[in-house]
C-alpha cells in the first residue's frame, strides 16, 4: 500500500449535515480531503432519502431544509469531479487511532461491496468526525412487539419509502421530534391516533429567550402544530405510553398521566385500541464509539448524553481531531451544518500554518451555532426523561432485547450483586452484550444503574470495533481469491 496514496490532509467521517458541510468547506479551502460514509449516498440519518438512482420522486417533499442539502451535496459533488475530494461511500470506519497522522481502519459495508472484504488503512493529518446520532429508547411493557418502532425509525422509513409503516399510529416519548415524526406520518397519508409528550412543557417558559433566538425553530414548530390541528391529532402533555398490548404484534397501547417524577398516576390510564404502529422517541444518542476510542475529553450534556468537549473552532481535546454535529451535543441539523462549516474552514485554513481569517460567512455560522446550542439546552431542560419510568415496568418486561434480560433479573442484580453501575450490571446480567452492544438498551441501563459520571458512561461506550466486522476483514485478507 503506497503511503502517499492513502494519506490525506483531512478525513471527514460521516456524510450527514455536519459531514457534508465540513467536507465541502475543507475541499473549497484547498485541503486534500477524503469523505468516508457508511451509506451509499449522501444525507446521513437526517437527510435520508430514496435511492437516487432508482427513485423518480423528489425527496424535497419529505424534508426540512432540503435546499441546504442540495446546496451542500452539489458542492461536494463538484469537489469530487474537480479531483479535490475523494469520496468513499459504503465504508465503515471501524477503528481510529490518534497521532500524526491519524490512522483509520475502514471496512466495506458487506451488502454494498460484496466483492471487497478486507480492511483499508487510511492516514490523515486532521480528522473531522461527524458521526451523528440514533434514537434513544426506554423499555416499556410490550416494546419488543412487532409494530413498535423508534420514532426516528418511522420517519426514516417514510423518507426512504414514501409510505408509512403503519396506518394508525401512536407516538410517545418526549421532545419536539415527536411532532416532526407525526408530521411525516400524516404527510404519508396515515392517521396519528395520539401523541403522548411526557413533559408538561412548562420547562420552556423560563427559557423563552433562548427559544426566541432561533425563529426558524419556532416557525417549524408552528407549522407542525397547524398540521396537527388540521388533522385533529390528539396531543397530550405529561402523559406517556406506559404499556403496549398485542399477541402477535402491537394492537393497542395504555397511556397514563404522569406525576412530576414520571410515575403513572392511578386512575388516569386510558387504552387506545386499533393501533398498528407505535413510535417511541426519547431523544437521541450521539454515536460515540470513535470519539471514545480516540480519547477525546467527554462530559454529560443536559439531556444526559455522553458528548465531547470542543473549543470554539470545533477542535476536541485531541489535537487535530475536530468534531461537528450531535456528538458535541444534540442540537439538530442547522447547528450541525454550522459546526461542520466552521470545522471545515478551520482545518483547511490551518494548512498554511497561520490562523485562518474570519470571513463574514464564518461569523454568521458562529452566531447560528451559539443560538442553536442555547435553544438545544433549553429544549433538553424542558424535555427531561421521566425519572420514575422504571415504575411502568413489569417483572417480565425485557430490558435488553438481544440477550433477553427481563426487569426481574435486572432488579435482582442491582439489589444483591453490587451491580449498581452500568458495567457491573452488564457483567451480572448480560445487558448490552448482544448484537446491539448496548446501543438499544444503553439508556435504560444508564438510568437503572444510576451514575452521573461521564467516566462510567465512557467505559461503557468503549466498544470496538465501531460496527460488527468479519474475522476475514480483521485478518486483513482480501477475500478475492475466487476471482
Amino acid at each position, binding site marked *: 500500500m503506497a503511503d502517499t496514496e492513502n494519506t490525506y490532509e483531512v478525513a471527514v467521517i460521516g456524510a450527514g449535515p455536519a459531514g457534508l458541510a465540513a467536507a465541502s468547506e475543507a475541499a473549497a479551502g484547498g485541503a486534500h480531503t477524503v469523505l468516508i460514509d457508511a451509506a451509499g449516498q449522501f444525507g446521513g440519518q437526517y437527510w435520508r432519502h430514496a435511492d437516487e438512482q432508482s427513485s423518480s420522486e423528489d425527496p424535497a417533499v419529505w424534508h426540512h431544509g432540503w435546499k441546504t442539502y442540495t446546496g451542500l451535496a452539489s458542492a461536494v459533488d463538484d469537489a469530487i469531479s474537480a479531483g479535490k475530494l475523494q469520496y468513499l461511500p459504503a465504508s465503515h470506519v471501524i477503528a481510529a*487511532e490518534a497521532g500524526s497522522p491519524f490512522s483509520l481502519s475502514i471496512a466495506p459495508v458487506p451488502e454494498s461491496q460484496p466483492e471487497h472484504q478486507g480492511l483499508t488503512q487510511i492516514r490523515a493529518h486532521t480528522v473531522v468526525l461527524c458521526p451523528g446520532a440514533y434514537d434513544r429508547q426506554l423499555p416499556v411493557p410490550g416494546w419488543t412487539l412487532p409494530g413498535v418502532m423508534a420514532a426516528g425509525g418511522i420517519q426514516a422509513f417514510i423518507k426512504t419509502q414514501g409510505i408509512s409503516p403503519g396506518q394508525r399510529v401512536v407516538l410517545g416519548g418526549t421532545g419536539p421530534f415527536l411532532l416532526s415524526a407525526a408530521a411525516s406520518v400524516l404527510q404519508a397519508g396515515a392517521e396519528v391516533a395520539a401523541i403522548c409528550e411526557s413533559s408538561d412543557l412548562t420547562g420552556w417558559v423560563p427559557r423563552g429567550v433562548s427559544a426566541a433566538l432561533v425563529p426558524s425553530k419556532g416557525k417549524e414548530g408552528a407549522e407542525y402544530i397547524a398540521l396537527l390541528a388540521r388533522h385533529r391529532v390528539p396531543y397530550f402533555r405529561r402523559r406517556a405510553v406506559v404499556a403496549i398490548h398485542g399477541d402477535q404484534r402491537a394492537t393497542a397501547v395504555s397511556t397514563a398521566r404522569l406525576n412530576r417524577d414520571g410515575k403513572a398516576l392511578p386512575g388516569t390510564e386510558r387504552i387506545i385500541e386499533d393501533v398498528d404502529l407505535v413510535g417511541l422517541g426519547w431523544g437521541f444518542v450521539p454515536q460515540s464509539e470513535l470519539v471514545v476510542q480516540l480519547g477525546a475529553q467527554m462530559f454529560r450534556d443536559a439531556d444526559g448524553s455522553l458528548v465531547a468537549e470542543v473549543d470554539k473552532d470545533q477542535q476536541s481535546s485531541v489535537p487535530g481531531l475536530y468534531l461537528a454535529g450531535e456528538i458535541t451535543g444534540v442540537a439538530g441539523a442547522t447547528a450541525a451544518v454550522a459546526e461542520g462549516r466552521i470545522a471545515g474552514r478551520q482545518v483547511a485554513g490551518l494548512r498554511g500554518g497561520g490562523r485562518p481569517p474570519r470571513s463574514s460567512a464564518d461569523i454568521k455560522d458562529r452566531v447560528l451555532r451559539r443560538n442553536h446550542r442555547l435553544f438545544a439546552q433549553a429544549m433538553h431542560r424542558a424535555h427531561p426523561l421521566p425519572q420514575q419510568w422504571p415504575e411502568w415496568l413489569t417483572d417480565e418486561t425485557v430490558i435488553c432485547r438481544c440477550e433477553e434480560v427481563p426487569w426481574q433479573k435486572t432488579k435482582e442484580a442491582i439489589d444483591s450483586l*453490587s451491580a449498581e453501575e452500568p458495567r457491573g450490571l452488564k457483567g451480572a446480567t448480560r445487558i448490552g452484550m448482544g448484537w446491539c452492544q448496548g446501543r438499544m438498551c444503553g439508556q435504560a441501563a444508564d438510568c437503572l444503574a444510576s451514575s452521573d459520571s461521564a467516566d462510567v458512561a465512557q467505559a461503557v461506550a468503549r466498544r*470496538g470495533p465501531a460496527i460488527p466486522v468479519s474475522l476475514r476483514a480483521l485478518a486483513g485478507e482480501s477475500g478475492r481469491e475466487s476471482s
Partner: protein
Amino acid sequence: MQSSPSDVLIIGSGAVGAAVAFFCAKAGLSVRVVDKGRPGGGTSSRCEGNLLVSDKEHGPELDLANYSLGLWRGELAEFAHLWEFENKGGIIVASQESSMASLQRALQVQRQHGIEVEEIDVPGLKELEPNVTDQAVGAAFYPDDCQVMPMLLTAHLLRMAREAGAELLFDTEVTGMVRTGDQIQGVRTSQGTYYAQTVINAAGPWGAEVAELAGVNVPVGPRRGYVLVTEPLPPMVFRKVYAAEYIDNVGSSEEGLQASPVVEGTQAGSILIGSSRERVGFDHTLNPEALQMIARNAIALFPFLQETRILRHYFGFRPYSPDHVPVIGPDPRVPGLWHACGHEGAGIGLSVGTGKLIAQALTGEQTDIELGPFSPARFDTAAVPEGQEVP
C-alpha cells in the same frame, strides 16, 4: 466516626479478592473489602473465565489448579449454576507433525503429574469438533478443563461474603499503609482509614503498586491480552480449543506481542477468541496487529470463522508474575501484610484455591497444600520504583 477494626482487610474485589473474602468470612473472620473501582472491574471483567489444567506445567501452579478443581467440583458444586460452571473439556490441536511431536512430549510429562489427558487422532478430533480445520494432524483432549462466567462468579462470591458478614467498600482507593514500626495496622484510603489485623493484597495487576505502599517489592505487573467476541451463533465450537503453540506462550516471559488461537463457545451463543500477550504496561491504545494475529490464527483453527462477525473486542491486563507462580501468603518482610496476586491468566480458576488456603492459614489451620512455594519471600527486599522492570 471511626469504623471498627476487622480481622482481615482485602484490597481488591476481583475474583481472587472475592474468593478470599468468601472463605475468610465463612471461616468466621471479620472481613472488609476495599476496591478503588467497582467489583470485578479490573481483570475479572475482561477475561474468559477459564479453569484450565491443560496449559499447566508441573509445579506449584499445577498443584493449586488441581486443588482448586476439587473445590469447584466439591465444596462449591452447589453454586455452580450461579456462575455458569461448565465442565466442557479442552482440546489442543496440532496442525503440523513437529507441533504434534512436542505436544506428545508435553502430554507425557503432564500425565506423570496426574493431569487427565488422552491423545486423539483426526477422526476422534472431528467427532468432538466437526468444524475444526482439516489441517489438523492430531490432538489431545483434557476432560478436566472447565469454564465459568467470571463476572457472575465475582458478584456471587462477594454477595455470599457479604451475607456472611463481610463489608464491601467500592470506589475506595488505598493510598497508604498505617503502620507501627514494621507492623502493618491498616490502610489509608480515599474514604478514610481502616484498621485490620491482616491486610491482604489482592490487587491483581496493580499488586506491585500496593506492595510498594508497604515498601516491598512484589514484581507483579500487567500483561495485556485481547479477546474477540463473535455474533451469537448456533453451537459450532463445543469445547475450549486451542493450538499447540499456546502452551509455549503461556510459559514464556517474552515482552513483545505473542498470539496463539484459543477458541471457545459460550452458553450465550457467542464464541470467544483469544489470545494475545504483550507487556506494554497499562496501555489502553488499540493494537491492530494483535487483533489481526488473533483473527488469522482463529481462522486457521476454525476456517468457518472467516465469515463470522466480531461484535466486540476488549482487552484485559493479566497480573503477570515473572516466574509464572502466583504470590500467596504472608510477607515475611512486613508483618501484617499478605498477598494474593500474580495469577496471570489463571486467576479465575485459581481464585477459590487461593481463597481457601489463605482462610486456613489465617485461622491457624494446616493448609491443604503448602504455601511455601508461593511465598513472596522469593523476591528481593528492596521496593522497586514504579515503572521499572524486574529481571
